[in-house]
């Protein structure tokens, strides 16, 4: 009878049996110590809202509750720490392809080198609508997307080259990755996700949009989010079907052909924005937490190939 029950459970809940196994990248205890992050107050974790992993595998943490940015090596050793001046606080932090960093202290957007030293600053108040909702850096341009969808294009000397208010873009729902604009539409057609990829040219965005082919991807009956693009142009989407089910991550090639999927069981005890990151190699990094601390897991790209 018990065996039958177990079999029945597996038949009824096949999803849980297929959840992918991750590689642990790093674990941090909560605390104010040198190699700790966040705080545990009244048994409630207050952890970093943002993190990133640079091309060398170093970990960048925006430790809002300890009022600093921290960079750790792969073994969790602190490399440097930046404390914004009084009245400012750590916001989003992003590692750039050349190893430099970009972060917000609440008032300025700061470009720094890999040692954390400031290279340049952008005074946010001079560019209404600017923000770090989206960040992309190529050899020629720096693209920053504000939280209402406006796109700012700077050259590498941080001189504004182009600004698109959201209603000047060919379509809302714009993500800029590797210098390409991805217009993702999940609303027009509830059965499909429509994606248009447009190469950036200062004056040819609208024309490029009109000529770009539409990629039609299946839309699931759940909360779907666009998670990113790897260096090969493959697209990653996640869907949460219900609070009790794991995330379904799907990978599509640039033509829209599905290459595979994995299921990720995510555990989180504090608030974090964009816990899922797609690396250039196609690995998925996930930040998780419980009352003991927070950790980052890696789901290697090859898991999407497993049958």
């Amino acid at each position, binding site marked *: 009878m018990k065996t039958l029950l177990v079999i029945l459970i597996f038949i009824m809940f096949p999803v849980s049996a297929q959840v992918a196994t991750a590689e642990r990248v790093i674990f941090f205890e909560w605390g104010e110590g040198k190699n700790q992050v966040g705080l545990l*107050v*009244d048994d409630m974790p207050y952890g970093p*809202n943002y993190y990133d992993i640079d091309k060398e595998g170093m970990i960048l943490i925006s430790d*809002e509750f300890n009022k600093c940015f921290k960079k750790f090596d792969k073994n969790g050793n602190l490399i440097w720490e930046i404390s914004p001046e009084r*009245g400012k*606080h750590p*916001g*989003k932090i992003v590692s750039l392809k050349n190893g430099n960093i970009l972060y*917000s202290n*609440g*008032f300025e*957007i700061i470009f720094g080198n890999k040692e954390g030293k400031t290279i340049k600053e952008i005074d*946010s*108040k001079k560019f*209404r*609508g*600017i*923000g*770090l*909702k989206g960040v992309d850096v190529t050899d020629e341009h720096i693209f920053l997307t*504000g*939280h*209402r*969808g406006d796109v700012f294009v700077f050259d590498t000397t941080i001189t504004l080259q182009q600004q698109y208010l*959201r209603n000047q873009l060919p379509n*809302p*729902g*714009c*993500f800029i990755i590797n210098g390409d604009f991805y217009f*993702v*539409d*999940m*609303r027009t057609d509830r059965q499909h996700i429509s994606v248009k990829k447009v190469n950036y040219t200062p004056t040819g965005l609208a024309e490029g949009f009109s000529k770009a082919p539409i990629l039609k991807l299946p839309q699931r*009956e*759940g*909360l*779907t*989010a*666009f998670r990113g693009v790897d260096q090969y142009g493959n697209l990653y989407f996640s869907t*949460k079907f*219900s*609070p*009790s089910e794991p995330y379904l991550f799907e990978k599509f090639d640039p033509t829209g052909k599905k290459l595979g999927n994995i299921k990720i069981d*995510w555990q*989180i*005890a*504090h*608030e*974090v*924005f964009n*816990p899922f990151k797609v690396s250039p190699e196609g690995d998925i990094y996930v930040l998780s937490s419980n009352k003991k601390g927070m950790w980052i897991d890696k789901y290697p790209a090859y898991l999407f190939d497993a049958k």
Partner: protein
Amino acid sequence: MKNTSSFYNLIVITIFCMLMNGCEAIPSFDRGDITIKYNELQNQLELEIENGTGGNFNYQNQPCDYASEWYEIRKIRYASDNILYYNEFLITDNNAWSIPVEWLNYTYFGFGSRWYWIQGSYLPCDDIYSVFTSSVGKDYYRLTDGELLYHPFLDTALYRYNVPYVLGTSTDQLGDNVSKTDNNGLTCLDCSGLVVWSLVKNNVDLFINGSERHIVGQINVNKLWEICRDHYFLSIPINSWQDGNLIFLDSNQNGTPDHVMFWTQDYESSSPYGWVVHSRGGDTQHDINDPALERGKVVFQPLPELYINNGWYFDGGYIPETTMISKN
């Protein structure tokens, strides 16, 4: 005829003012009045000082000798108590009669309310000017660039953007009551206070007898959920949320909702995770670049995935716009 004694008296004033028409006085003075006004053409904040001779306002003329420090009040709420502290300031601009409204950038959308504390002194040019007091208004002033959310409940809720969060009845550090039941709930709002206020302002009949003031004060999250259950709609699946839906959370997992938010689609990224308008507890943060970090007040932010993933999602409710007149 000038009153030379008062002419040369340097009057030191300390006032608390809420932008724009809403002001809470700390000290009380015999004559006069002062309000912060938003000059839309100049895009700046100006002090409006009541003409002591008859109640007319004169804010065109700068006093001969004037010094002021402008502070933006932010709420600091500590977990151990529920007291509103006015101890974090943003803007200090000495010797200013008016200040540019740079803080429009802070909101991204050009809407919302701000609280200011002005501390200053002036030497009047003539005896028209007298002492400062504050005026107590009934409403906040919203700045808008006309790009708000096209849903009446959401649009109304955003009038309260930046209004500090206070749970139920609380006091500030000066001992004044800052309960959401005060001033028709305008002083502070908790999560249900924001929702109820937004509904009531749109003439939704919430089936509670009494004045608007009492409605805002009496309804908590669970009561709001029961109202949806008994009179409107519940059990909205997470993939069917529409603009203006109510998202109920049960973060302590005790079977009773403890937080409520308005939900709206994220039109910019087309992510169904969407954004929420809610009055949110916690310490106040301002991040020009990232409103997602803002808290301790009425905020407009991306829906944290934590809320859904951890099973905090309790229910989705819906009160149709068509019930704005009333529902039998």
